[in-house]
């Protein structure tokens, strides 16, 4: 069981220490990124925001009225029934922890990326609070 702390520069340049520990089965555990509880209402706004690589580009949420939702990733309906909060957070932060070849962008990581555009260098797609807010919304999507 290892333990590491990595520095992540969030959008807006706020430096955040992310505590992670590698469990015996090799899976990384990541704890809540902020002390402020996630706000599901803001999470929905963030999730829909096309300037923030909207989840709806690739995923479908049937309970939302939004037209033209993507079908690349799995539908997110009932996602809170299928995954724990911890596992969903891990997927949001960096789904490469689960599948190295995933097509899901890492929403809160600046590591192991190639030729990031100048405008985006050192920045994450979501801020720490946005991860927690989107997560709070997703945790409401139960079957």
């Amino acid at each position, binding site marked *: 069981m290892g333990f590491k702390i990595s520095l992540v520069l969030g959008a807006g340049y706020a430096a955040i220490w992310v505590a992670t520990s590698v469990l015996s089965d090799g899976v990384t555990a990541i704890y809540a990124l902020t002390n402020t509880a996630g706000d599901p209402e803001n999470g929905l706004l963030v999730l829909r925001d096309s300037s923030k*690589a909207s989840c*709806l*580009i*690739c995923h479908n949420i049937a309970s939302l009225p939004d*037209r*033209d*939702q*993507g*079908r*690349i990733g799995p539908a997110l309906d009932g996602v809170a029934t299928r995954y724990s909060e911890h596992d969903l957070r891990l997927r949001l932060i960096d789904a*490469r922890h689960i599948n190295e070849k995933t*097509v899901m*962008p*890492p929403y809160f990581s600046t590591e192991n*990326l*190639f*030729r*990031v*555009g*100048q*405008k*985006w260098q050192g*920045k994450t*797609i979501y801020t720490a609070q946005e991860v927690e807010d989107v997560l709070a919304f997703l945790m409401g999507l139960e079957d």
Partner: protein
Amino acid sequence: MKRLALILIICAAHAHAQTLAGSGPISGYDFMEPTTQQLQDDDFINPAFFLVDRGLALWDQPSPTNSKSCGNCHQDIETDMYDVSRQYPKYDTKLSKFINLEMKINSEIVNKLDASPLAPGSEDLLALTSLIGLQSRGLPMASASNAETQPWIERGNTIYKTKRGQLNLSCADCHQDHWGDRLRGDTISQGQINAFPIFRLIWGEVGSLQRMFTWCMNAVRSEPYNNDSDEYLALEAFLTKRAQGLTIETPGVRR
């Protein structure tokens, strides 16, 4: 009766999916809405033909330095430029370098017309590329599998499959592994290059293949490569090989 109609629709959809799932490459045309396809189908309404007309005018325009024009040597465009564009990109023995059609046009402008090269992506270069490309329309895409081209194809293949940018996506992630899937309201195409230069509706103008590369790289929040860079040439070589057999549609119309 309604049920029969439904069954027929399901069968038709299934047959369509079967065709799409076939092993051959599929043109971006097949992924367009019918209204976009119609724009390409008719040369009189295809907006890219404004540039073809401009190309025709440029063809006979005398150079300010030596008064020569393209037309002096290549009088009959349809005959002389037939099958020319699809030979590129290729290794040019005279220039001793691997080049695409745009670079060939510019080398002719510099060496034969004693004029300044046209800027990548400029209207004049797009006009000449469209005019020459049109003379290969209807022919199948071809790729030279010779010793000079092979390393470029291989390098392009690596670039194509390398994840990049803040969104950490490779070309292959979308256009090889997820074509046919819905990205927002659009169906992801195979990203085939058989219609360039294209009039792109979201640009509202004609753009080059390299402009498309840059657009895609910006879309995944990656630093694009420079125009005429080795990386873009390699990508073009690989994509030409990948499109082998697809009918050339230049100048095409896309979303």
